[in-house]
């Protein structure tokens, strides 16, 4: 069951203030990923304080520090925007659902994925390093 919007709004704004576009409907997702060209990052947001609470600032650090960055930045909110999240995951192929997680797509295919188990217990700086490695490998 989704949490009250008032409670999750700051978690959404952590990303939107970075220029990450929220995809809140199936139509939003299809418009963004249906004929995706170039590179696109999809951040699957979550209310989980232990993991997402570090992942969001980790993304901020990566975007601030990275010379190479994805062409487009998107987010869906797991547990909140249910249909949009399910639709986004349909573009992730055989990668299993978890939240928070980060998919890096290139021309419609997932080329790198950071799962929840790669986020848990790590600080924002460690998560940023992982994201920067993904950007360096695929976003030049």
């Amino acid at each position, binding site marked *: 069951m989704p949490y009250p919007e008032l*409670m999750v709004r*700051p*978690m959404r*704004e*952590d990303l939107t203030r970075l220029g990450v576009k929220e995809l809140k409907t199936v139509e939003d997702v299809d418009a963004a990923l249906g004929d995706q060209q170039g590179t696109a990052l999809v951040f699957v947001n979550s*209310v*989980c*304080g*232990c*993991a*997402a*609470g*570090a992942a*969001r*600032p980790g993304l*901020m650090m990566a975007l601030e520090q990275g010379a190479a960055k994805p062409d487009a930045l998107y987010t869906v909110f797991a547990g909140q925007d249910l249909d949009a999240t399910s639709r986004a995951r349909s573009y992730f192929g*055989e*990668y*299993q*659902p*978890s939240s928070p*997680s980060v998919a890096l797509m290139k021309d419609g295919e997932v080329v790198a*994925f950071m*799962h*929840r*188990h*790669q986020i*848990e*217990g790590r600080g924002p700086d460690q998560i940023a390093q992982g994201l920067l490695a993904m950007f360096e490998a695929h976003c030049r």
Partner: protein
Amino acid sequence: MSDGILKHHDRDELHGITVVVSGKSGRTYVGRWHERQARGVVMRDVAVLESGDPADWLAKLARFGVPPEHRMLVVPEDEFGGVRRFG
């Protein structure tokens, strides 16, 4: 940045962490640790390998993620053989 307000200070340190639980039966369980109770370990979104060397299976899960075969599963106390973090 918001502070990630949903933290569970009443849970043990592995709460919410993805772990590998070794079963005395030879099964291997991967999923998020919820809590340990008298009846056993409660896990969420769990994949289970029934038998055999788990190395290749774990490597696949590390790359593609953990398929949530069981939304919730209890590893009985007498089956519990050990736990380590996954990832």
